[in-house]
């Protein structure tokens, strides 16, 4: 696309002959100020890097000692698992949230609306602390028929809700509210002629949703999954407040023993940035594959 526009514009460098005002290609002159400011920026950056590299108090060997160490890699794995599970849970629950909000049943759509409002309104850290500490006031979880003595199973909440599970639930629920809105937007972006054509062929609502509307809505939804995933990865660092065992928790635990707080933060930062750097190529790949259908 941009290649074509460039080519199309290229012949314009020859001014047209004939009557009328002269026509010249425009070239912006760089002011000397832009060279100065650019130079200053580069100097500042080099200075900062040099300061980091040469700082007497930063022990780079510590960074290299830990960045590939077992506990850190384990924490990294937990962060990735946690984020992936939370995204998956967000997608599945988000689907129900979206359908609930679009329901013609006002009670259902009001409940779904409240759910979204609540989970998007509460800070993620509050939700994490809530699920991490819920065992304090709901010690046992009973599966059974409400208001009767019939019970199928009973769990100790503290055993069930390990920090990992609590983190997963908190992040997944919060994500479901965001995903719900994204999915709803995707579903509503589909032209109503698509539903009508499907209905005219005798398809029923559920089939229309799964076979016609959702596959098309995915094209609006999938590009935002990458952004959502990077948001969750970053939000998952909050899990350290309930000792979720993630990357940041692990780095902080090690820092607590070796007192190299900065070095360990750099170790964690390195991996967070590495994950984020990997997301966009994957996103590009997926979007490219999806675009094949409207060649």
């Amino acid at each position, binding site marked *: 696309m941009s290649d074509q526009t460039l080519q199309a514009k290229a012949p314009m460098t020859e001014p047209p002959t004939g009557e009328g005002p002269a026509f010249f290609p425009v070239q912006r002159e760089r002011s000397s100020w832009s060279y100065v400011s650019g130079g200053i920026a580069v100097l500042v950056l080099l200075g900062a890097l040099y300061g980091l590299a040469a700082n007497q108090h930063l022990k780079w060997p510590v960074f290299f000692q830990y960045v590939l160490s077992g506990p850190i890699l384990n924490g990294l794995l937990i962060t990735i698992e946690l984020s992936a599970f939370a995204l998956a849970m967000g997608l599945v629950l988000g689907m129900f949230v979206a359908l609930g909000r679009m329901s013609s049943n006002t009670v259902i759509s009001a409940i779904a609306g409240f759910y979204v409002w609540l989970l998007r309104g509460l800070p993620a850290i509050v939700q994490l602390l809530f699920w991490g500490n819920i065992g304090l006031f709901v010690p046992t979880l009973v599966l059974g028929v409400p208001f009767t003595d019939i019970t199928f199973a009973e769990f100790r909440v503290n055993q069930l809700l390990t920090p990992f599970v609590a983190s997963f639930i908190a992040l997944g629920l919060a994500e479901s509210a965001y995903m719900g809105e994204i999915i709803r937007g995707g579903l509503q972006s589909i032209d109503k002629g698509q539903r009508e054509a499907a209905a005219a*062929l*005798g398809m029923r609502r559920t089939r229309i949703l799964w076979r016609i509307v959702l596959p098309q809505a995915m094209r609006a939804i999938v590009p935002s999954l990458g952004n959502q995933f990077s948001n969750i990865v970053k939000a998952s660092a909050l899990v350290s407040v309930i000792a979720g065992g993630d990357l940041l928790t692990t780095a902080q635990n090690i820092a607590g023993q070796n007192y190299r707080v900065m070095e360990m933060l750099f170790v964690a930062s390195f991996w967070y940035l590495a994950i984020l750097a990997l997301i966009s190529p994957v996103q590009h790949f997926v979007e490219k594959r999806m675009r094949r259908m409207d*060649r």
Partner: protein
Amino acid sequence: MIKVDRVRKSFGPLMVLKDVSFEVAAGETVCIIGPSGSGKSTILRCINHLESVNSGRITLNGELIAYREAGDRLVELPEKEIAMRIRNIGMVFQGFNLFPHMTVLQNLIEAPIGVKGEKREVAVERGMEYLTRVGLANKADAYPAQLSGGQKQRVAIARALNMEPQVILFDEPTSALDPENVNEVLQVMKQLAASGQTMIVVTHEMGFAREAADRVIFMDHGQIIESGSPNDVLSWPTNPRTKAFVGSVL
């Protein structure tokens, strides 16, 4: 085959259909003409229940399509039963409404397999026959975005045909097309009419109505003003409103 009996339909305070009645016999091609906003699309959409009616009865082979009778009132049928009947009524839209995420052939076999429970090979074989009939067998694996408007509409006709409906409704099938694409679609529709397919066609193409219709219905302001053979309605209209309309489009 199709009987529309005193159908009324309002959108809020606006009454769009005022006691519309007509019948279409098996094998007939009926064209509905009339000025913009006269209710032509609405009557088609009521027939296959894309819109509900306020009163009146629409039957296919004597059976109410989307309702059951309870005393003197009509009660909407469950979704499942409506879908069961609507599969016998095909529809071709002005805007094609092909499924863009499916190939041409997938568009054709989706409903026969998913709705009728047909075997894939059966649906594919018949689908290819219909694609051949509309002259697009070589586009079976193309996506809708790769087709011209005329090709899209021919695929949409083949898609409707592949459900083997008893009647097909066309809502201005050529109005969204570039002029050079109109004829290829009308050609397919004429063949279809000649083959004995029951069709109800809302159209502004008077040439098509004259040539292919068994009957022409002129609607204005939600009412049927005049109805008869193409020659009667288009060449010798009796009602002044029909005269004015026919004069304006010819």
